[in-house]
């Protein structure tokens, strides 16, 4: 049997990429009764979707209001636990951080959400693991955090509960086009026919779009996080700052990341796994400064992940200009928290023709029409030579 030409059962919408964005889109479509198939080359959420801080507080995004509306309902809507908890506190260990962290308060206010500045005494009262050796902080009455692994799997299982399909260990090899449309997706397990295609393949999105003649500029990078043993739960787990993002999980672990990233070639991330580095120690030092009463707590894991960024670091959710029935989606390294909303937007673009609840013009691919071809070099985004 020749897998190249084997006709498999396709779907009205085929989604390439089993990360949070593709899975959420698949789930929203399945909720609308659309037949959907998600193709994933490995295991769902194995990329950045399962390796992130779990934050849900993206006040700069046009999807913010929908993000805030949906998260409190996600457990119920999915039928699986996401571990979502609302609200966020961010602590500043110097005046510079205090100034910079104010932007979230301003962006929140502009969109009708309340925040408060905290003095060191208030910080100590609200955050048991902190001391009053801080400049201050902010209590944002919006946002929150969830468990990425559990959420990813929740989307996948919810799709299946609604009659959709998620096919893991299935690598996309190319597309079949006819009359300016993609009619099927070629994989190592045969061809899957489709009426619509969504490409949400993280750092691999650029290459897949190039197969269809479109330029979707992006570059992959590596970032890393650390996890401690569990501690008694703080009243609010969504505490970060001091140059770190992260949270106390509902189990009590401190999971935090931050610091320098490494730009990479996409060919290399296909051949090598993400590897953490001695940056583990620097993140640990920052966390001990952020939460001094946890300085004795043991780090039990670190992890690294690959993420992609577009030239301006903002998402692309748009139709490809070269074919009629393809939507491309990258959240540009900030996709987990926004996923309930990004999937909804993609669903509406397919079923309604456009996103009705948010203005996605800032996600348009056309903003890069005048982009310099050597934008990577001009921005100093350089992979490091080995050896």
């Amino acid at each position: 049997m020749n897998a190249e030409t084997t006709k498999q059962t396709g779907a009205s919408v085929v989604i390439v990429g089993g990360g949070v964005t593709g899975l959420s889109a698949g789930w929203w479509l399945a909720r609308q009764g659309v037949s959907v198939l998600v193709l994933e080359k490995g295991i769902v959420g194995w990329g950045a979707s399962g390796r992130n801080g779990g934050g849900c507080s993206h006040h700069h995004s046009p999807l913010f209001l929908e993000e805030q509306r949906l998260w409190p309902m996600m457990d119920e809507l999915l039928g699986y636990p996401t571990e979502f908890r609302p609200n966020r506190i961010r602590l500043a260990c110097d005046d510079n951080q205090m100034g910079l962290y104010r932007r979230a308060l301003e962006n929140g206010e502009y969109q009708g959400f309340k925040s408060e500045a905290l003095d060191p005494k208030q910080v100590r009262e609200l955050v048991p693991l902190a001391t009053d050796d801080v400049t201050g902080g902010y209590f944002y009455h919006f946002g929150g955090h969830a468990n990425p692994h559990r959420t990813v799997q929740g989307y996948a299982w919810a799709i299946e509960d609604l009659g959709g399909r998620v096919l893991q260990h299935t690598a996309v090899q190319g597309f079949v086009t006819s009359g300016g449309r993609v009619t099927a997706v070629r994989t190592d397990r045969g061809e899957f026919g489709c009426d619509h295609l969504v490409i949400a393949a993280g750092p691999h999105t650029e290459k897949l779009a190039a197969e269809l003649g479109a330029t979707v500029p992006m570059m992959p990078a590596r970032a890393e996080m650390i996890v401690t043993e569990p501690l008694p739960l703080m009243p609010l787990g969504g505490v970060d700052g001091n140059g770190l993002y992260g949270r106390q999980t509902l189990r009590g672990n401190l999971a935090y990341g931050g610091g320098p990233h490494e730009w990479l070639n996409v060919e290399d991330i296909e051949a090598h796994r993400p590897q953490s580095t001695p940056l583990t120690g620097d993140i640990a030092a920052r966390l001990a400064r952020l939460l001094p009463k946890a300085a004795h707590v043991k780090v039990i894991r670190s992890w690294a992940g690959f993420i992609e960024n577009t030239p301006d670091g903002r998402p692309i959710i748009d139709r490809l200009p070269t074919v009629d029935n393809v939507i491309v989606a990258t959240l540009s390294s900030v996709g987990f928290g926004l996923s309930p909303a990004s999937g909804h937007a993609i669903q509406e673009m397919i079923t309604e023709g456009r996103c009705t609840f948010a203005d996605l013009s800032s996600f348009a691919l056309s903003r890069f029409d005048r982009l310099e071809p050597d934008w990577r070099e001009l921005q100093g985004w350089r992979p490091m030579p080995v050896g």
Partner: protein
Amino acid sequence: MSEMPIDEASVAVKELPIAERTQLLIIGAGPAGLAAAMAASRRGIAAMLVDENPVPFETMGEDVPLHFGQRMTGAARNRNAMMEEVLAADPALTEAFEAGVDIRLGTVVWGLYAPMPTAGWIPGTIAALADHERSWMVSAENVVVAAGRRDMGLAFPGWELPGVMGAVAAARLATTYDALAARRAVVLGTSTETMLAVAALRRAGVEIAAIVERADTVLDPAAVDALTGHVVARAEGDAEGVRAVVVTAVDADGRHVAGSERRFDCDTVVLGVGTVPAIELLEAMGARVAFDDARGGHVPVLDARQQTTRPGIYAIGDCAGIWPGKSRDAAVPRAEAEAAVAAIAASGDSHDAVLPDAPAADLAAYRCGWVRASVVEAAGEPYVCQCEEVTARDILEVRPPRYLGWNPPTQKPADLRSLLGDGPPHPDQVKRLTRAGMGACQGRRCREQVATLLALGAAEPLAQVPLATFRAPVRPLPLSRLSPGTDAVTVGRGWDSWFGMAPQWVPFWKVPSHYTVSGREPEGPVASE
């Protein structure tokens, strides 16, 4: 021509602080590591020999690095006394010291790093070391890993009691530390490694109440008196630990035979059902590993000179493979050490590759037999993962942890395949969803059991179940002790929580319609959200 710009928030402008440099770093001062140190000394190679023993008492209490089961005597609290015990336990340490080897005891290597295309930042081969006060980085031209062995855990009701411990841990406390608080033990397993541990325990005055083997025949002839076809039905005891063990006969499917129970008074249960190569440093650094029946499970892939797939990184001794002939004869690890050091010295000396004996028993079948009879068939659902309180059923049905209080009726058939999709189940995926192996002992006590359970649950060969990845730090270490201190100034400069890209965080109502690099607004300081 102007200089090319560089992303100041990326690692490209950050320098890792290296505190020390050495020609050869040897990790582990057991027979293999010491032989490597002496071989290096003879060849004029400057070597640093690092060993984590004596391990702090508090760390032992966490079952790190071995499953000590709280059976340390009070003497293990005295760091100086334990340092003397470690030195006295092997005269070869003193010989190596006198030969000029730079020996660091009580020092753990918590991470090994080498540059790779996805981590070009790492400047050569780097080891992250920690003692009881601080961490620092050592750059090494070559590394010989002689990290030894550890024990496979095995759940049964009561296995969380103090006194249930690993065979390697018991022998370590008895011989290296002279600090084993055990009087009368029941031993599980009959491998050569376990029987050598039994001999060490007997020399230390421990009475062996029984040796229990699940299989119908023993693995090592020295276990001739073992109670075959039996497993532990339960351990009984109290806050001070095990008081007795009840064993039961099992049938060919591992089911417990009613009315066959026998009770043994004892204060200790020695788990000797699997002696596992300690590969965590090597796997975590990206050296390729493979399941090898003849070498005791997952081991690094080696060339004829003991080199792993990472250039300049060698594995010798038990972490390179465990087999009976090697466990009995220290000449085998010595030969591995000689081969590795000869390769490092780039000598033309010819060495035959050190190869394992043909496997005496089917390792996968042996482990599956124990796990089916002891864990799956256990009455009362013992926790397989003690840290996170995860049972065999939780793992096989991929249930969320209990603390979520999530118990809706599931619509799904409860088998691994339908829950997780095609292909052998991945322990890392099961870990993320059930938390099995995610705890403070870093999966030491459960990872082999979990893999075996997944093989049984998915009806896949054990060798096909992927290895759960290891990650640095490979020992649990406090935040304060992992901190690189003030040296890390270049890493800290311009630190941002994410990419430090101003355009990424411009609120959407202010984003321009086109983006070009030359059209970017001048940027002040930025904090990613």
